[in-house]
């Protein structure tokens, strides 16, 4: 019987029929999705922190409203994704708990510090650019609620990247000091950005299953290559140099060749030892704990109003 259900399920996937919350699905599909979607949601939420750092110090009002709107979008993206994950049977509180206890991961890029205003440009351009590259294929992922959430996310994300690139352009067309700031930001964000696509394909054991289930549509290395190919001309347009001495156009492949990624650094940050892991997690845990009285008060108020309505009905 089990095998039969699994065949029906795979048949739907092969025919591009979306899986919806109450449909039968293999337990491992459910678990994989819960892990991936909640991790994605956590990344959006923690991703507000590095940029939130610069809202009060944005150089002018135009930059400030744009950054504020971007950070607010990220909160929204986190919420779309959390509710998509909840349709798979995990509660919001359980997901928060996994984040706060360090059991769940989030994108390791957000464990790097934002040292200058130019980092707002580099993050929008590179980090959001890499995220878009990852997210566009997810609009066609096999699980309906995840795909629908990603359509909303992608629609909103393109402004994020454009505002980042515009910041970089202003700095590169500004004083020599401003251009140096932009180059410094690129130097620091380049490698972490291309690590965002995850381990190399031959080192990514769950990828094959995720491709078969059409959770993923492209491999980590394919997406990484695509990102590098579109980003290099953008760096050239800014007059900036990508910090990779092995980077060069390969005519035969029709792609850029690039240097070896420092996976030790990546693994170290994922393991919790990046420059800001502790700070980021503490900010989330503090926000949760300090908000407890608000959540309780809102519950108590809602309960009181419910009781009032009930006693009113009884009287009538």
């Amino acid at each position, binding site marked *: 019987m089990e095998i039969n259900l699994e065949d029906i399920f795979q048949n739907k996937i092969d025919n591009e029929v979306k899986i919806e919350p109450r449909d039968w699905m293999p337990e491992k599909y459910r678990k994989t999705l819960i892990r991936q979607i909640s991790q994605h949601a956590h990344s959006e939420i923690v991703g507000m922190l590095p940029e939130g750092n610069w809202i009060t110090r944005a150089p002018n009002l135009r930059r400030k409203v744009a950054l504020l709107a971007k950070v607010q979008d990220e909160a929204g993206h986190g919420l779309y994704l959390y*509710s998509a994950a909840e349709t798979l049977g995990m509660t*919001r509180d359980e997901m928060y708990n996994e984040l706060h206890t360090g059991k769940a991961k989030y994108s390791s890029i957000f464990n790097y510090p934002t040292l200058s205003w130019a980092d707002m440009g580099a993050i929008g351009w590179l980090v959001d650019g890499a995220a878009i590259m990852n997210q566009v294929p997810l609009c066609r992922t096999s699980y309906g609620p995840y795909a629908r959430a990603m359509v909303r996310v992608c629609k909103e994300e393109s402004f994020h990247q454009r505002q980042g690139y515009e910041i970089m352009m202003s700095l590169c067309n500004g004083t020599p000091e401003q251009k140096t700031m932009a180059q410094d930001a690129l130097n620091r964000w380049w490698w972490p950005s291309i690590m965002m696509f995850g381990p190399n394909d031959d080192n990514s054991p769950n990828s094959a299953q995720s491709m078969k289930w059409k959770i993923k549509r492209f491999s980590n290395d394919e997406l990484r290559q695509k990102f590098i190919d579109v980003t290099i001309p953008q760096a050239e347009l800014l007059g900036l140099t990508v910090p990779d001495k092995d980077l060069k156009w390969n005519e035969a492949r029709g792609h850029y060749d690039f240097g070896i990624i420092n996976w030790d650094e990546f693994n170290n940050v994922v393991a919790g030892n990046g420059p800001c892991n502790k700070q980021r997690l503490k900010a989330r845990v503090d926000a949760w704990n300090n908000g407890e009285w608000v959540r309780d008060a809102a*519950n108590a108020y*809602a309960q009181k109003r419910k009781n009032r309505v009930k006693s009113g009905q009884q009287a009538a």
Partner: protein
Amino acid sequence: MNQNEWPLWEVFIRAKQGLSHKHVGSLHAADYQMAIENARDVYTRRMEGVSIWVVESNNLYANEPNEQDALFEPATDKIYRHPTFYVLPEELNHM
């Protein structure tokens, strides 16, 4: 832990006058007013709506997906419910 979790609400948005409300997602809120205000912030930041409905998720009932075939099968063989079932002369206009 979950006793204190705010209930889940399903959110429906009317994109513009003349269209029906459409399900857009869900969110947590302590009561319906908070649900509407949060839905405004989460789902209509770019003028996606002119009206919001919220329904507490545990008030929503649905058919069983594994009984889907039995529920919808009766409609599959009734092609006479479609206009193309009826064969009429080519010369006939406005029908």
